[in-house]
């Protein structure tokens, strides 16, 4: 399969890690949406599967390639894509895009992860699932957990996932230091996910 992504996009790591985990050959192609050749692509990253099908939703690709992992993995994928990703982009934004309201929202999400990992070794239960790879890749870039306190369970899980040989292999192609949430802005023509209003939990 081919992974079309833009430089530095952390979502690209999500897909690279998955491909390594499934031992599928993947060709990483870093492109820009301003290139006329790619005018039909709406979002980056986009994956072109061996059967020619193109998908731009990482969660859809995870579900398609790992169909047997159903509930509760699916809910975690959606949670990661629709809550954690926008919160991280808001939180990691710099300059005029910086959003001070993002800290508390992200902290609540991170706390939920830590609470979950305090009762089970992996995000979706006793076994490693692709939800772990999906969420770990989002938290991989430097600084995502800089505001989080009392999250020992999350930290030990983070180190456990990072040590997986498949993850290490992916990091050789996309090192953590090359990733930045600012790159999401160039991942689509909508300016990233800045338009997504953060949902403030009640608890």
């Amino acid at each position: 399969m081919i992974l079309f992504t833009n430089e530095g996009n952390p979502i690209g790591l999500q897909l690279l890690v998955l491909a390594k985990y499934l031992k599928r050959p993947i060709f990483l192609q870093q492109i820009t949406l301003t290139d006329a050749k790619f005018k039909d692509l709406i979002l980056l990253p986009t994956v072109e599967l061996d059967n020619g099908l193109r998908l731009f939703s990482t969660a859809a690709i995870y579900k398609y390639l790992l169909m047997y992992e159903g509930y509760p993995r699916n809910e975690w994928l959606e949670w990661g894509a629709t809550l954690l990703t926008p919160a991280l982009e808001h939180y990691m934004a710099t300059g005029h895009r910086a959003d001070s309201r993002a800290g508390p929202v992200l902290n609540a999400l991170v706390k939920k992860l830590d609470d979950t990992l305090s009762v089970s070794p992996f995000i979706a239960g006793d076994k490693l699932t692709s939800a772990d790879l999906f969420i770990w890749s989002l938290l991989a870039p430097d600084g995502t957990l800089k505001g989080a306190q009392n999250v020992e369970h999350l930290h030990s899980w983070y180190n456990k996932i990072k040590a997986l040989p498949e993850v290490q292999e992916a990091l050789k192609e996309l090192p953590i230091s090359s990733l930045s949430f600012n790159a999401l802005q160039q991942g689509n023509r909508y300016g990233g996910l800045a338009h997504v209003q953060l949902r403030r939990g009640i608890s």
Partner: protein
Amino acid sequence: MCDVATVQKIANCLGVAPGEIQLNDEQVVTRIGAQNNRVTGFATILESLAVESKSEIAQNSIASPEVQAQVYQWIEFAVLYVGPGSKDKHVSKQLLADLNNLFSRKSYLVGHFLTLGDLAVFYAIGDLIKSLSPVDKENYLNLSRWYDHLQQRPDIHQGETLLNFTTIYLHNWATGTHL
């Protein structure tokens, strides 16, 4: 439209009992269905509705793993881009252009049939389409055609007033340029 109302509409559309639809402590839509089964997340709920439904739209949406994956990506697109982006001037303009371009090559988002992907985008874009002037609607002709086609179905409009896509009035002042 809020997620709770949209899930209810889509459940009606599929002929499935929606169960109890509410927001959880993270403000995420949650469905408590039969046997107290709890499902969280807009896209995951729509998938659960499709599995329970015998309707044509549901069957179309799970026709194959490839279709299912594409349907899911459009539902997620509705959640992350169409819904929240509609309220932003810059994002909504790009969305209208992208969707209009997409519908110049196809009649539905996935395959050649109506799926939950279309429904999710349809309900998410309703307010934006409503705000368009007749001339805007002309500019986004392909998107307008898709929207109008969907809204005509009683199972989709569910009694709401239909938006006007008629272009006849334009003949009066721009006969020559009217396409």
